């Protein structure tokens, strides 16, 4: 299990991380969310030992992370980086060997991964000759080469087309099912909601929300009402107290209400206002939870 415990990091006067804590268990995928500049990349770099924390500790299986432990981690940084003039297959073998693989194993694994990622016909191509999407896949292959126990992926879905997103999602799910701990950051919150049971939301260096996605949604003090109402008066929403109109398109209304409000009251108002066709009462989705938590922390 990866454990980040009370990590603080300053760059001059800027507090990049302030008492940040999170855990990722083996076989689990943790979504690491936050606005730009929140401290996600700094946290990941500290986990990988690229920078030292000013305070706090990072451990793997309850032991401080040393160089040998880091060799069992796979990393995909936000800014993709591979040797532009090195052939793809050689690149994978090189990085695999840097993580301690024997030459023969590295060659075999590189060949297998390139087939899995549909890159086998580009194995001799230099990285600079690959398309953006294929460079993304190559970068992922580098992170997967040595069958890591922990995968740390910084914005792995950025710039991928839907097919690439599906392929990467499948790979991460498959790795997690074999016991790999996966920590990844993303701004594509619908994707995170689909892939992760657990998320950590960070803002301005501090963790502002953490837990199971369903719990976080249910614990929100707000609920969304989706209503389809025909032959209604245009101002029917303004007449309701404690209800905010979030979106309106044709007969479809999306309303934000306090979770203390009685559903039956709203339904009754809606029926008085027009002909009610649809009515749903749901907790906010992850992106709304994210916005709420970030807003609250500011």
């Amino acid at each position, binding site marked *: 299990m990866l454990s980040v415990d009370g990590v603080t990091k300053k760059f001059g006067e800027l507090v990049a991380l302030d008492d940040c804590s999170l855990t990722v268990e083996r076989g689990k995928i943790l979504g690491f969310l936050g606005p730009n500049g929140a401290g996600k990349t700094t946290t990941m*770099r500290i986990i990988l030992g*690229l*920078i030292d924390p000013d305070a706090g500790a990072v451990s793997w299986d309850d032991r401080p992370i040393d160089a040998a432990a880091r060799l069992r981690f796979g990393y995909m*940084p936000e*800014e993709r*980086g*591979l040797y532009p003039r090195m052939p793809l297959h050689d690149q994978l073998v090189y*990085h695999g060997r*840097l993580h301690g693989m024997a030459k023969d194993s590295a060659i075999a694994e590189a060949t297998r991964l390139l087939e899995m990622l549909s890159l086998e016909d580009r194995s001799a191509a230099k990285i600079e000759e690959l398309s953006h999407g294929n460079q993304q896949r190559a970068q992922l292959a580098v992170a997967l080469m040595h069958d890591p126990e922990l995968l740390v992926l910084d914005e792995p879905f950025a710039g991928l087309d839907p097919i690439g997103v599906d392929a990467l999602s499948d790979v991460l799910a498959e790795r997690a099912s074999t016991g790999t701990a996966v920590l990844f950051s993303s701004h594509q919150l619908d994707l995170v909601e689909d892939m992760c049971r657990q998320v950590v939301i960070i803002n301005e260096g501090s963790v502002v929300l953490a837990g199971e996605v369903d719990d976080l949604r249910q614990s929100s003090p707000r609920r969304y009402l989706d209503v389809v109402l025909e032959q209604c008066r245009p101002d029917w929403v303004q007449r309701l107290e404690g209800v905010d109109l979030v979106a309106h398109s044709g007969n479809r209304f999306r309303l934000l209400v306090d979770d203390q409000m009685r559903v039956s009251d709203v339904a009754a108002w809606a029926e008085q206002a027009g002909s009610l066709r649809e009515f749903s009462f749901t907790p906010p989705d992850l992106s709304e939870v994210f916005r709420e938590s970030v807003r609250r922390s500011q």
Partner: protein
Amino acid sequence: MSSWKTLWLVGSREWRSRRKAFAISTLILVVVVSGGLTAIGLTAGGSDGPVTYRIGTVGPTVAVEALINIYAPPGFRADVKAFSSAEEIERRMEEGELEFGIASATEILSYPGRSKAMLQAISAALSDRQIRQQAEALGVAPDDLDSMLDTTVTVREVVEPAESFSADSALAAASLFFTFMGILAYGQWVAYGVVEEKAGRVAEVVLSAVTPRQLLTAKVVSIGFLGFCQLMIVGFLVLLLGGLLGVVDLPDATGGAFVIIVGWFLLGYAFYAAGYAASGALVRSAQDASDAVGGFNLLLMVGYFTAVSSLIAERDTLVTQIASFVPITAPLTMPMRMVRGDVGVGQGLISVGIMLLATYGMVLVGARVFRQGIIRVGIKLKWREVVRSRG
């Protein structure tokens, strides 16, 4: 994984990525050096071809000159002039008018380290003449002459004229040039390599598996090894063409000078490469690469021009003496002074000791700056800021 294996993996990637540039630059150097040496060999001594040595002798000249030219290797020629006494010949040599003198039938006058090939030719000619004279006087048949070939001829070295641009000065100039070019070229390779890895963001991936110190060490050592190989190739080419094939007449001190050049290249390279690597790690982007090398290029220039000023002055100036103990300038000034014979072994060792300490310090500071700067992309960092910051 062992640290050595990591260093080997990273270092061998550096070699592979630079093999084409190394092959091309080595080829160019080989062509330039062999062409230059051949041209010197062909043109030295005037437009009529062979290198002419002026030799003074007491007594008749024609027979001696003919004998020496028989024994002289291709490309060398003796111009023998008669003088009244051995003292007169020695005086003329000290004034730089003669390269060799024949003081008697068994004594040759020569400058230290001057053309071994011509010295052997004169020696052989004197032995030959002596044997023939003795054989004739004793009535020995020509067939018995072989038994007399053990005649020993002694060589006495005399003071070389101070005003001439000596062979040692030429060697010193060569040592300066090759040390300067070696440190400059290979130090810049290190800087540009670091900039490339930083700007291309690959450093962040590599550093998740190896430590910054391992990456820095592997880069500096592997590129330095290429520089060492190139220097050895050129050095052996010079010795081969000059010494063995006799294309040019090399001073005896050439071998020793070569060792000094290589040793000081390695010292200077280690010092400067650590600095170049750290500078490369501080740049904002690949476009700023020239900024990375500019500062250390300038420092190298200071040492280079300090040494050149001493070469032009043809004397060991106070500035050069001081500079040869300052780590920034010592890699260029000290080997030049050592090759020219301006310093003894003791001073040389003191300078080497200072240089080793300074290199150790530079490697520590360089590694720290490298570690701090290599993953901080997009901002221009300053040495002071990075050295003071944590992690």
